């Protein structure tokens, strides 16, 4: 079920009441309730999806214990490889089977060897990219002795399937989230109230900003050969705000819902469009994924290539971003998108004295210092990212190049339709996030806030009314397709 749906609007209060009023005396029963609620939430899309997540959960639960119990390094590695094999096989089959087959056939066709097309009608289970990464990090951290596995199966299963973050992240580390399932949660009024505000802000971003940008962006990208270059540029700029509002909006709702149940998730977006360079951008954008890739892919690769010094680091960065692209979608346009981001790191790696990481979990805490001279850097970074979005949003690599070509070759007339309403929504979004740039989210108010309670309530009601009035045709969250 979607967060912005009537089903969820009914589901959430039921679970909330049962959690805090009926089953709050017993931690195990409370966790069991969350597990059942999470399976109901996930099964709402397709009950068949549950078999995969349960399989992944059972396998990683037992493998985690086996890795921890074994003192023999070879045996530990064998168990770890089994965990990786199962999770990556699930991901590989359901997400990439048809892509690899198509690419394989195209490659042979291009050298004159004709092959019959063979694809399977495979449904992509929602959230598979997220929960497989979450369970893999559990096994990897146990192997590195950073984490002790839990023997509480229900707590572990709930950690894997916890509904606020199951389908589109944030990808939580076991070291942060699992202990929260193992200790009693106490209701905290300020924490829960902040959660409600964060949900409200997330719904505003998703429903008012992202869903209203979608029809405009869709019409530009689906008819790009007939649009003037000004509209093509406008299309990709509006998409930049659409994807940010959509994904960060979802994350805000996920984090806010978790707060209602007493759980603290890590921040996933730290106002990335105010970044002054690509390196800072990736410390602020989808922090849970970029830090995951940093810790489990970039760092081992950088160690492996250490003999090549800066060239080795660049290779590690480039490969990490190629994999990041592939993670986002089974398509060469996504791989190209990732590769382009990797290339952006060339000046960063070769000019800096020491390049250590793409992103860390601490990125969520990086404060935003600002001076007027930073504006050109912010604008340049934004447009560099927009260029990559052409590849991210286009249906294929050839469409992306066609779109890019159109920007430089199609008639540069003044845009024939200017979405003033969208500009207003985007200005409200960015202005709010600018003024709140050193807070956890756009609607966080604390005791030191200068906004008086009465005006805060006016803001809440204006946002609620905007959500109801400006909701358009319901759009699926963009990151659900990943």
């Amino acid at each position, binding site marked *: 079920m979607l967060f912005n749906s009537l*089903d969820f609007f009914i589901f959430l209060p039921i679970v909330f009441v049962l959690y805090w009023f009926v089953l709050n005396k017993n931690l195990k029963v409370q966790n069991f309730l969350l597990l059942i609620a999470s399976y109901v939430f996930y099964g709402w899309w397709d009950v068949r999806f549950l078999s995969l997540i349960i399989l992944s959960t059972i396998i990683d639960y037992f493998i985690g214990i086996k890795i921890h119990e074994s003192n023999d390094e070879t045996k530990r590695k064998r168990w770890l490889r089994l965990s990786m094999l199962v999770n990556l096989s699930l991901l590989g089959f359901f997400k990439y089977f048809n892509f690899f087959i198509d690419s394989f056939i195209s490659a042979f066709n291009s050298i004159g060897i004709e092959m019959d097309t063979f694809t399977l009608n495979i449904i992509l289970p929602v959230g598979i990219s997220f929960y497989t990464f979450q369970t893999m990090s559990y096994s990897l951290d146990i192997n590195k002795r950073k984490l002790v596995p839990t023997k509480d199966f229900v707590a572990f299963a709930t950690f894997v399937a916890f509904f606020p973050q199951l389908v589109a992240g944030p990808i939580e580390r076991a070291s942060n989230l699992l202990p929260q399932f193992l200790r009693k949660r106490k209701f905290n009024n300020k924490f829960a109230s902040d959660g409600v505000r964060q949900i409200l802000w997330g719904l505003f971003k998703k429903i008012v900003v992202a869903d209203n940008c979608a029809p405009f962006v869709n019409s530009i990208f689906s008819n790009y050969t007939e649009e003037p270059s000004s509209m093509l540029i406008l299309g990709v700029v509006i998409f930049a705000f659409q994807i940010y509002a959509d994904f960060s909006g979802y994350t805000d709702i996920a984090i806010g819902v978790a707060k209602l149940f007493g759980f603290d998730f890590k921040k996933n977006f730290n106002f990335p469009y105010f970044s002054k360079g690509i390196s800072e951008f990736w410390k602020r954008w989808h922090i849970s994924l970029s830090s995951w890739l940093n810790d489990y892919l970039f760092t081992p690769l950088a160690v492996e290539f250490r003999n090549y010094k800066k060239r080795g680091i660049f290779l590690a960065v480039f490969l990490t971003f190629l994999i990041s692209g592939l993670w986002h979608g089974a398509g060469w346009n996504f791989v190209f998108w990732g590769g382009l981001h990797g290339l952006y790191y060339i000046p960063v790696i070769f000019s800096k004295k020491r390049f250590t990481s793409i992103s860390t979990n601490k990125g969520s805490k990086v404060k935003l210092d600002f001076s007027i001279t930073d504006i050109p850097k912010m604008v340049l970074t934004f447009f560099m990212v927009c260029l990559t979005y052409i590849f991210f949003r286009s249906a294929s690599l050839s469409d992306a190049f066609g779109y890019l070509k159109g920007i430089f070759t199609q008639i540069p007339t003044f845009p024939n339709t200017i979405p003033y309403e969208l500009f207003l929504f985007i200005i409200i979004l960015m202005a709010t996030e600018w003024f709140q740039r050193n807070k956890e989210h756009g609607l966080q108010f604390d005791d030191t806030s200068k906004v008086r309670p009465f005006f805060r309530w006016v803001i*809440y*009601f204006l946002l609620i009314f905007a959500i109801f*009035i400006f909701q358009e*045709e*319901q759009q699926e969250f963009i990151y659900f397709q990943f």
Partner: protein
Amino acid sequence: MKSFLKKTGILIIVFTILNIILNYVYELPAKKAIKNKIHKNSLKWNDIHKNQNTYDLITIGASRAYRSFNPNILDSKLNLNSYNMGTSAQDIAESYYTLKEILKYQKPKFVILDLFLPSSDDKHDFYQIYSNASFFSSNKTKYNLIIDGYGATGVANYCIPILKFKNYIKKDINSFFSNRSNSKPETNWIKGFSYDTITVTQKEISNFYPISNFENTSFKKERFNEFFNKIKQITLDNNIKLICVRTPYPPSRLALNKIDDENAFFRNFTKKSNIPYYDLNTFENHKYKYIDSDFSDYHHPNYKGAQKASWQLIEIINKLRK
């Protein structure tokens, strides 16, 4: 927890009060219109309920239907007593339940159903839907319209005024920021048919966008199929001749479409269902060639355009009578 629940309670209460105020403000013009006997839907249903078994030909569909067929012209040439029961933003589910309600009071020989792709898409003007349904005498039909026609979304829109009136609130907000006035042009009325004499301007023509197609409309084929078959069945059960039409578009707008998905779909669909279908954009177009000035906006005929559409319908019915 008490403080949290108290704040949640205040939120719900204030939200409810604001919705009650909104409901009062936005229903007031309708209530005044009903009292002054100028509310179109009220007048239509009054005629249907009071003049039982009177009308031989009934038109159903959205505003394109009630702006296209002039009962005075139809009656004079067909020797029938016709009535135009098209209502604003009527979609296929609403058409079915409207017809169901009509057939409790009327025994028409012909039902004309106007089709276009938005008649079964994701966008619904719930205020217009419920405004029409509020005049049904049968609460069961009204209930079924809400539940079967629109599901949980329908219930939410029925119960929450800010959802029901959101299109009108948006228009009011837009008019606050623009110079355009919110007032409607003067329209005239004949047995459900509403017409004006306005002609679409060159500026409006230059801003035309393509008509609905499968790319720009989220057409729900299964939903359309379900309710179309119900309409077909209810007309068969009552020995009524069902005729499907697609009312005309300004030719400049029609020319923007490379492929006419809409016409192709309805032509094939009605052929499979064995129901006659006529596209008024092309039917006998050597006699009834439409020009842009036959329209008052991007898809509603004005009085001149409605004359042509009415004459086309007369020829269709005469053809079918043979």
